[in-house]
């Protein structure tokens, strides 16, 4: 299994009571709560953590993209990727943005990713996402065009990377007389494309057909297993056998000496993530048109009561793994076999977790977990287990 150190770069000094009062850390949570002195410090801490991950032997580091929120301070992940391109010496550099529909000029992502791929001499992993619903509120982009714009921007970028320019492109949302970006990507034909999603069936099926690596965001492991099975089924239909390398699970891992210590230490920071940084009204998460009416109805029907989640809840559901080295190894092996993935996108920092604890966690994972999974692939009869 490959391990990536996945960072959200939260503004971890955010006033949690103020978030609760506002109802969300997103879009409407005033940036008056952002202190640039503290923010600058965090950017450097977090970038240092990414460099530390490289030194510890993580296979890659992951950035993501969210807008107008204390949940993550990476609206333009390419800037931070640029800062890491020369200091992360060995690990892959994955951007699990960019939210293509938010762009009025997708060629700029073709350019940005190509530069990063050149800078890292081919260590870039190019993520393409639709962005979560809140992004459409934040960036003034019509959610009803999200899927159309994603499809068009994706096609344009891949063509810009693979077809010799200049050529013309005329779509519904994007038109260019000249498509001829310099530089071209370092990797041939282009950087690996990874597709993160919350579990949209149409996205999973599309990623499988395109043979792109599918990344499942924060979900209970049973749901992850179902989503990955859908991917494998779709690959079968497309006439090939999906490899576990095409499936990545985005999780959170916290390791301490004993289970009890780990839970006690992680609790406030993980619960801050679940109950404050992640919280938003349904209308913000799922603006009309963002997803088709059938999925919208499913989400509305499944509407959770919105009661706070405890660390025990998310451990039990297999959303996160928290415990002693032995517990973490056992759970991770169990989940790898159940869901059949070969990449772990691991948040080692989460919520309000401070720098020293994050580094201790990263070290523990690197020493106590990584070596045991280096050559491990999913085992057992997954198909039945997922059902």
């Amino acid at each position: 299994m490959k391990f990536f150190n996945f960072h959200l770069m939260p503004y971890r000094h955010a006033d949690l009571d103020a978030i609760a009062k506002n109802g969300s850390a997103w879009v409407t949570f005033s940036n008056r709560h952002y202190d640039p002195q503290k923010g600058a410090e965090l950017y450097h801490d977090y970038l240092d953590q990414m460099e530390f991950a490289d030194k510890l032997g993580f296979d890659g580091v992951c950035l993501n993209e969210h807008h107008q929120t204390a949940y993550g301070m990476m609206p333009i992940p390419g800037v931070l990727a640029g800062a890491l391109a020369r200091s992360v010496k060995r690990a892959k550099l994955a951007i699990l943005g960019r939210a293509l529909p938010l762009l009025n000029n997708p060629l700029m992502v073709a350019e940005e990713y190509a530069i990063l791929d050149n800078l890292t001499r081919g260590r870039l992993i190019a993520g393409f996402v639709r962005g979560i619903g809140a992004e459409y509120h934040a960036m003034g982009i019509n959610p009803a065009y999200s899927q159309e714009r994603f499809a068009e921007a994706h096609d344009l970028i891949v063509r810009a990377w693979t077809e010799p320019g200049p050529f013309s492109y005329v779509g519904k949302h994007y038109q260019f007389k000249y498509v001829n970006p310099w530089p071209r990507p370092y990797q041939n034909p282009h950087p690996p494309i990874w597709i993160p999603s919350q579990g949209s069936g149409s996205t999973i099926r599309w990623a499988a057909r395109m043979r792109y690596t599918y990344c499942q965001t924060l979900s209970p492991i049973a749901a992850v297993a179902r989503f990955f099975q859908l991917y494998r089924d779709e690959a079968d239909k497309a006439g090939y056998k999906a490899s576990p390398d095409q499936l990545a699970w985005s999780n959170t891992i916290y390791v301490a000496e004993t289970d009890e210590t780990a839970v006690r230490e992680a609790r406030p920071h993980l619960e801050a993530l679940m109950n404050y940084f992640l919280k938003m009204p349904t209308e913000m998460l799922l603006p009309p048109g963002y997803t088709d009416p059938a999925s919208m109805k499913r989400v509305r029907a499944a509407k959770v009561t919105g009661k706070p989640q405890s660390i025990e809840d998310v451990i039990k559901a297999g959303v996160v793994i928290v415990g002693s080295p032995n517990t973490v190894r056992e759970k991770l092996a169990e989940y790898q076999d159940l869901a059949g993935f070969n990449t772990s996108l691991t948040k080692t920092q989460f919520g309000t977790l401070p720098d020293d604890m994050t580094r201790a966690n990263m070290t523990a994972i690197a020493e106590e977990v990584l070596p045991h999974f280096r050559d491990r692939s999913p085992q057992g009869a997954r198909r039945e287990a997922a059902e």
Partner: protein
Amino acid sequence: MADHSTSTIAIRDCRIRLMRGGAGPPLLFLHGGGGMGIWLPCMARLAKKFHVIAPEHPGFGASDTPPWLDTVGDLANFYLDFLDQLDLSGVHLIGSSLGGWIAAEAAVRNATRLASLTLVGAAGIHLNDVAQVDTFLSNEEQRIRDLFHDQELAEAVIAGSQRPELEDAALKNRMMTAKLSWQPRNHDPHLRKWLHRIKVPTLLIWGDRDRIFPKDYAFAFQGLIPGAKAVIIADCGHLPHVEKGDAFAAELEAFIGAMRIAA
């Protein structure tokens, strides 16, 4: 009541549902983002003097969602086709909210089949520094509350909106409303440049407690459409035809009556 009927009609490639009732000069009522709704008491009253036609827009409720539908301009052209196909003339065109925007766009493009235009709490233009509710961030209950001044009426509407059989249409309506009005939010920056081309008598009916498009919008439209008359209804929210149906119908009848005398 047998004073109206509901049917389906195809305009070119697009089938839409419409309610119609009464006889007399045609009165075409374009609904807002909430959808076609019911045959309102004010429609029943107006049907005593007019041939009231209340279509359900393409992309809403039981009407088709045609592949060509992207903008309010598309709907404006659709209704010009609609008037041609039904060969209606001397039409009193009325539009509420999003429907008002469609009506204004249509009237700018071609008013030859129109006798008058009435905008009710209409979208279509933007004013800086006017506090407006973000209906896309409100939950369903709050959204309904914000439509009305009379909160007892809002309660009744909320109670009536919980029926599961309405869910599909509500989701469809909301999705199409977002498609048409999310960005730029609730307006076309180019519309205001051409509102002066509306030469038919124009009436602006607004609730004085409209929280969606506050009455400042009535006065802004009045400044942009030559000779437009503004009527502000007291203790009334965004939907005067629902909340103050009698006052709404009376204003409309008086306006059209005065037009006839002037003619």
